[in-house]
């Protein structure tokens, strides 16, 4: 909301206070001042002139020599570069010595005689920006400001401010918090300023008017959930027309366009009190019954802005003999709109509760100055004050006479009383605030304090009566404490530290996550952060899909790129790798630790039914190694598998994971992908992106990806309770023996290791694959594998006999399980 300091000064004397001081105090007390603007012209020495002659500048194509007629003050010649300067145009002429705004650098400058390209220029023709009036007036196109419709020849040579009745003013743009409907008014802001600077608040008088006659207007409220109070004043002999300058200025400073005096009065009083009002043309709203009801679905209503709006059961309308005449508290109707020739007025002042008003405004997608106030909540107890004030202004400014007032009142106004004690203030804030300060703060805000006789010792207790305009946000002792401290000043509260620190519990899961991040980085992968909310386009671009039934979709996204929650990190990682390739970062090794989301159960009040699991996703394409002049490594399937193996062996030493060829995923290379299992639980996948997809996505090198379910790792680690007990190191030497055999390709390495382990040979310490051979000496479809076995005893040096026996046992086990032929 925009608050004019000139207007504010009417209710609280702000002399001696700079706009900056007021702004800082309001901001600290909870009313954030977003900007401070100067309006109404800071300039001086500018008069009205008329362009009599326009000639070409002899030395510059783009400049003109303009002879300005200043009426009784004669003529002056200026050099002017504006493209729109034309003979006969009335303009704002800055004389030598005038102060206007420097458009390039901001700030004011004083105009001095100048010689421009050899021609003397005495003065300047101004643009709106040079006068700082661009918020109040509009001019078409670039260049100087044509005054033609605003002045007459009689004004030539007269001071521009006087002619246009301009008055310099400062406007604060304030942003009240959602709970402070009372600050949507100049009086509300004035009350804050009065309390903050301990200056008296002066309110306008609002006397109950005396209607001169009677009428057949009636108000009947039937649904109090949409309207609790409605008052209508019937005024006749209205002389509508332009508003007085002071009113126009104030509306302008608040950012509201002046329409005509009747409409302006309703807006003026709304800004002043925060109570929206509406005026109907009574000729178009003849005597009858006024009501407020919920709209019928499909009912069409044309608002003041010429929009035909289809209403819903959420919309609330003011009716005249049951016909909608206004969207209640949002906007009036076109049919009953006030015109310049309006002779009689039906003035509405009503209390529309915030919840139904908000739904109503939303139902037609419309927000107005009026609905912004009802939505936050207006003071139900002071509707009549604004009503009386508007009637008085109509009588004064349009010479209207009040015929009658019709109203229906279902408000249940209760005065709330809340206890407050100095002990409690101390307990919450951690500091003592003197009784006198408490009273000096709360009283100007409208609270009435009654000290209680039962107050014991230093604990002063009060009974505090809450003013109606604060009934919505202050109804408990804690709310009063906030009132005290926000005016007293948060900056006056000391800094202390809470006592009795207990050692915080360790978070083992966080250790795991940090360990994963560090390991991945140590292995050469960089962490990325990508969106959890994705869209169909991403899946299409990256050749992935996800199960529609278990996908969590958002209903109201503004962007097609963010319509549902991901179930895999890989599409995002592909997108990031593609982006990096396009930026010249072709060696891309990245990982992300992020959630996936799957609908699992039906939702209830406290459970969304959605399972969120943390996944570790990784992508490798190219190779980031340094020193490639020496040896240029390539990333292949075993690079990515090795990274995953190293991770798992570090996190879960001794736990064996199973790798199963994964041939069925359409986005993955059918011969170079594996599914991983930990016990019976699926742990994730590792493999090469399908070459066809690689080509579609225009990746220059093969792409390898992996994705592991961190929750599965966590389940295992969570159960682990024992700490590591270090094994003593064997003093006896180990021996190594090699075995080599040929076997059909179907025999996997994992099967070989498993068979060797099943020999249960106690001397076997380690088995390492050291060679694979395919070639002419072997049958097609077979390969030769060579393993180095390490044998060791903890109690003695091994003899050849023991070694041979062990090897024999292992070979027998291998032959019995697998079709191998030893060489």
């Amino acid at each position: 909301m925009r608050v004019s300091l000139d207007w504010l000064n009417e209710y609280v004397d702000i002399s001696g206070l700079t706009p900056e001081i007021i702004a800082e105090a309001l901001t600290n007390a909870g009313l954030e001042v977003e900007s401070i603007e100067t309006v109404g012209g800071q300039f001086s020495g500018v008069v009205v002139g008329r362009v009599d002659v326009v000639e070409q500048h002899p030395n510059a194509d783009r400049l003109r020599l303009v002879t300005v007629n200043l009426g009784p003050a004669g003529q002056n010649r200026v050099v002017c570069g504006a493209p729109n300067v034309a003979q006969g145009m009335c303009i704002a002429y800055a004389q030598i010595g005038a102060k206007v705004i420097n458009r390039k650098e901001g700030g004011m400058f004083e105009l001095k005689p100048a010689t421009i390209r050899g021609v003397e220029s005495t003065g300047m023709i101004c643009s709106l920006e040079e006068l700082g009036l661009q918020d109040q007036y509009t001019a078409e196109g670039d260049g100087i400001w044509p005054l033609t419709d605003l002045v007459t020849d009689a004004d030539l040579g007269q001071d521009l401010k006087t002619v246009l009745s301009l008055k310099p003013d400062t406007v604060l743009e304030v942003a009240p918090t959602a709970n402070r409907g009372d600050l949507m008014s100049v009086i509300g802001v004035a009350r804050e300023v009065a309390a903050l600077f301990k200056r008296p608040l002066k309110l306008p008088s609002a006397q109950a008017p005396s209607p001169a006659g009677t009428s057949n207007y009636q108000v009947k409220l039937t649904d109090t959930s949409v309207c609790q109070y409605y008052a209508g004043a019937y005024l006749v002999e209205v002389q509508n027309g332009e508003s007085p300058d002071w009113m126009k200025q104030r509306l302008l400073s608040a950012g509201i366009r002046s329409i005509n005096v009747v409409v302006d009065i309703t807006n003026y009083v709304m800004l002043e009190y925060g109570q929206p009002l509406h005026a109907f043309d009574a000729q178009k709203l003849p005597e009858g019954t006024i009501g407020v009801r919920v709209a019928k679905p499909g009912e069409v209503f044309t608002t003041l802005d010429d929009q035909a709006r289809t209403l819903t059961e959420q919309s609330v309308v003011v009716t005249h003999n049951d016909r909608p005449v206004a969207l209640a508290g949002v906007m009036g109707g076109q049919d009953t709109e006030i015109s310049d020739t309006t002779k009689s007025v039906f003035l509405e002042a009503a209390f529309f509760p915030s919840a139904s008003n908000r739904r109503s405004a939303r139902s037609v997608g419309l927000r107005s100055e009026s609905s912004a106030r009802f939505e936050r909540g207006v003071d139900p107890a002071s509707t009549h004050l604004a009503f009386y004030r508007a009637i008085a202004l109509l009588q004064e400014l349009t010479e209207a006479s009040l015929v009658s007032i019709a109203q229906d009142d279902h408000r249940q106004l209760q005065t709330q009383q809340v206890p407050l004690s100095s002990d409690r203030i101390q307990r919450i804030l951690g500091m003592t605030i003197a009784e006198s300060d408490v009273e000096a703060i709360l009283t100007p805000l409208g609270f009435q304090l009654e000290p209680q006789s039962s107050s014991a010792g230093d604990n002063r207790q009060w009974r505090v009566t809450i003013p109606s305009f604060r009934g919505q946000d202050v109804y408990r002792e804690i709310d009063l404490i906030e009132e005290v401290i926000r005016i007293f000043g948060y900056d006056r509260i000391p800094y202390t530290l809470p006592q009795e620190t207990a050692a915080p519990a360790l978070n083992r899961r966080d250790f795991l996550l940090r360990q994963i991040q560090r390991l991945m980085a140590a292995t050469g992968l960089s962490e990325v952060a990508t969106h959890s909310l994705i869209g169909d386009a991403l899946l299409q671009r990256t050749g992935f899909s996800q199960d529609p039934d278990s996908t969590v979709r958002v209903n109201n996204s503004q962007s097609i790129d963010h319509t549902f929650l991901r179930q895999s990190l890989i599409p995002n990682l592909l997108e990031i790798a593609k982006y990096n390739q396009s930026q010249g970062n072709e060696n891309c090794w990245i990982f992300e630790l992020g959630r996936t989301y799957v609908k699992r159960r039906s939702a209830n009040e406290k459970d969304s039914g959605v399972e969120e699991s943390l996944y570790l996703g990784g992508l490798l394409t190219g190779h980031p190694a340094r020193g490639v002049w020496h040896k240029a490594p390539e990333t292949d399937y075993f690079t990515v598998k090795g990274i995953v193996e190293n991770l798992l062996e570090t996190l879960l030493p001794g736990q064996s994971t199973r790798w199963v060829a994964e041939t069925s995923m359409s986005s993955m290379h059918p011969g170079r992908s594996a599914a991983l299992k930990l016990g019976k639980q699926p742990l994730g996948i590792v493999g090469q992106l399908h070459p066809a997809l690689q080509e579609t996505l225009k990746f220059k090198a093969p792409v390898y990806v992996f994705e592991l379910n961190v929750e599965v790792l966590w389940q295992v680690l969570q159960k682990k309770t024992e700490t590591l007990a270090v094994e003593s190191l064997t003093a006896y030497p180990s021996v190594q023996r090699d075995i080599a055999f040929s076997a059909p390709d179907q025999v996997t390495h994992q099967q070989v290791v498993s068979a060797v382990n099943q020999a249960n040979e106690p001397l076997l310490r380690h088995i390492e694959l050291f060679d694979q051979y395919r070639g002419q000496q072997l049958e097609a479809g077979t390969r030769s594998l060579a393993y180095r076995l390490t044998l060791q005893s903890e109690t003695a040096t091994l003899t050849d006999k023991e070694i041979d026996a062990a090897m024999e046992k292992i070979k027998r086990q291998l032959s019995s399980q697998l079709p191998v032929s030893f060489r």
Partner: protein
Amino acid sequence: MSPVSHDLKEQLQSLQAEAQAALSKATSLKEIEEYRVHFLGRKGPLSTIKRGLKDVPDAERVEIGSLANEISQTIESLLDERLTALKQEALAVQLAEEALDVTMPGVYLPTGTIHPLTLVTQSVVDIFRGMGFELIEDNTCPEVETDYYNFEALNFPADHPARDMQDTFYTDVASNVLLRSQTSNAQIRYMERQKPPFRVVSPGRVYRNEEVSSRKGVMFHQIEGLLVDEKTTFSDLKGILHQFVKLFFGQERPTRFRNSFFPFTEPSAEVDVQCILCNGNGCRTCGHHGWLEILGAGMVDPNVLKGVGIDPEKYNGFAFGMGVERLAMLQYSIRDLRMFYNNDLRFLNQFRG
């Protein structure tokens, strides 16, 4: 001297001269070994001379014998000397051949980097851990949340504007299921499980239905903090946050507490830190105010405590929440929020160490 002795003596002396001449020409280890056999071997001239000693008269045998030994040792040491010299020559050649341009690049796999949002989150969490705050386990704080935990239990009135479709993402799961708009749901979920006193922090992703810009996105990260105890005061909140600012920004920085409004705290505050770029003089980053808003905070509203079964007459507490992107932008002078999610490696690789 007998003619036999004289002859042997001459032979011995010429043998030494012959060995000296031969070895000086030897260029390989193999040649040296051949000479060793030639001169000193059993069939060599020295052995022949030693065998001829029996013909030398007794009185001269000792002299000739010791001369033979002397010459034998001399040849032996000549052989060794030459051998050492040749080895050194060979080593010198090897070293010369092995010389490298030691300035050429080493071979390594560069360490990857941790994302700046993770770095900032972990640094904030660690600061609070140092002040006794426990990190709530991330898997107890869902992002897909019910209206109850995101709004109702946090004292949002039924018709609060924040519940509007414009601000919050609602889902097709059920009408009350949404994407959390703040990490404050962690407060409620934690308090439902634990009895006070406690101090906790909880970072995570949150979602707002907003137009994407350089300062706002539909998703961002927050860190929530909560302390509940018997005698907690607003001055404790100020003290804790003041310490945080000092530790996070690495130096004492003026902070400003302003009154504000959040449904789940009362009194509420927004906390500004003096602009780290212009030291409060006013610049574009701080909108010429000299202050940067970094977090929201306040005393936990009694209604929130009541809702989770904690007696607000006995206990009270404070809560705070801060935006990770905002802190990271200030910490690393990042001007556009979208940098975090573009994940350009040239950006990410700057976060080493």
